[in-house]
């Protein structure tokens, strides 16, 4: 297994641990449906994913998943408060046009909102910027800036600040080291490579 596939699996396992069996889950930016497929098989959830790409929706449909092609905020507006037990925003938050709007809407339709993102405050990423003076490129960010979708290089400190400013309660947080495997709770903004949060109103 490549290092990247391994990292992807770690992310899935932690979210999988947090998801209660048999609950209703919404995955924002579901991609090809790998996470939802995993949750469906391990937790018997009732799941739906949202993504913008026809091909990714096709891949989800091929896995037997419910998937919706379209804008995630408009989609969420179609549902009553707390319709979903959990809304997952895994490695999507950095690409959102309106992160505040999406997360607040997710907190309305979901009892819990799970956010996972790569920490750009991680020392290696800082060093990369400092020494190379270039956009971060590693096994996760494989492409040049001109071949990448626009993304906010947010950090753990940025995200915690966002929650404080918006009055969002952090119910649970996990910070993982550069290998995205071992927990790293000391100086996470500098020492953690990946962050996962459970948010609540």
């Amino acid at each position, binding site marked *: 297994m490549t290092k990247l596939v391994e990292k992807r699996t770690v992310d899935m396992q932690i979210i999988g641990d947090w998801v209660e069996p048999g609950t209703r889950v919404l995955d924002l930016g579901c991609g090809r449906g790998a996470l939802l497929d995993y949750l469906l098989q391990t937790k018997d959830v*009732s799941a739906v994913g949202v993504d913008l790409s*026809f091909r990714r929706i096709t891949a989800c449909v091929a896995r037997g998943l419910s998937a919706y*092609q379209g804008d995630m905020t408009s989609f969420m507006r179609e549902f009553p408060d707390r319709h979903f037990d959990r809304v997952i925003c895994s490695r999507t938050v950095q690409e959102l046009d309106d992160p505040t709007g999406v997360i607040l809407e997710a907190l309305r339709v979901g009892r819990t909102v799970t956010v996972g993102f790569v920490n750009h405050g991680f020392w290696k990423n800082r060093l990369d910027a400092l020494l190379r003076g270039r956009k971060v490129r590693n096994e996760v960010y494989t492409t040049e800036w001109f071949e990448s979708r626009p993304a906010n290089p947010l950090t753990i400190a940025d995200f915690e600040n966002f929650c404080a400013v918006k009055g969002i309660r952090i119910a649970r947080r996990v910070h993982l080291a550069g290998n995205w495997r071992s927990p790293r709770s000391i100086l996470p903004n500098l020492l953690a490579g990946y962050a996962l949060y459970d948010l609540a109103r």
Partner: protein
Amino acid sequence: MTDDVETQPAPGVAPRHLAPGEVGLVAPHDFVCAEPFIFKSGQTLPGFTLRYETYGALNAARDNAILICHALSGDHHCAGWHSADDKKPGWWNNLIGPGKAVDTGRFFVICANVLGGCQGSTGPSSVNPETGRPYGVAFPFVTILDMVRAQKLLLDHLGVASLHAVIGGSMGGMTALQFSITYPAFTRRVLAMATTSREGAQAIAFNEVGRQAIMQDPDWNRGDYAKGGGPRVGLAIARMMAHITYVSDASMDRKFGRRKKDSAAGDAYNFDVQFEVESYLRHQGQAFINRFDANSYLYITRALDHFDLAQAHGSLEAAFAPVQAETLAVGFTSDWLFPPEQNRTIAHALLRAGKRASYAELSTDLGHDSFLLESEELYALVRSFLERQEPPVFDFSI
């Protein structure tokens, strides 16, 4: 649905109907139901006939059947050729066949002309046994639900235990949705394209213009006319107008632009045909009157107008409450008859009702008839939904 669906036979190769990957020569059959049929309106028929075609074979478990539902002006002939010199195959031949997206090597595919139609199924042009003359407007008012109930009787007759899927575009999509509501345990998958859960004001308005064109034609004669006669002018105009709603500004402009019939001529100050698009529409109108009955057009457009699942059940969620099927709704960006939003609404309501539902949207500029598009992306989606086969991908970037 327009009459434009055709495949281009490559010169110098074997006839298309003999090619591998095609269902080949097919023949229609008639299902005759001798039991009285009570319509939603309360009106009755002593019995009815549905003309249908099937491709592929029913398996031992009798559960590999796929029902194809046609649109307003479609029919039971959705794949294959009726004879070796047929110019065109069935209307969805690009989708249906051995190894195609709807794989007849795997599935038993059935398509029937709707009740109220005019391609062999009982409709207003059928002879009323009580009078010995065509029913005309004495035919019972038909609804999408009536069409579905009649087709279920056909499926029972064919020994189908349950449907692997029911598939349709436009009116066929409504029929498919209605199937999963009326026969929830019988229907495992619904694939509804370019459709709606509720005929909106604009669509009703277009239908009404078509009906007025027919009914204002003196030859309509309150629906009383001999077979092959009737309001030919009115029906042709109805078709010309409807045809415009099936395509798009962009696709018409690409196909015709402002090209003239006689390219050398300048502007002629008369009302004869000058632009190619005029000539094309007139041809469409003429082609239609030779294959369609004006009274059927009135009845089926009325059935479309009456289709409103939310109103029929109190709310769309209530309508979908009994559904057991997985549903896939597909919208097309340039469809202005049943725009993407109306297809999204179907998925929203099903998901709110706690059902399994997906929505996919294809970018195309071909308008409402995009569901008939020759598109590898659409085929991949249909195949994924029916067979759950994901093409392998080695892209792990985020």
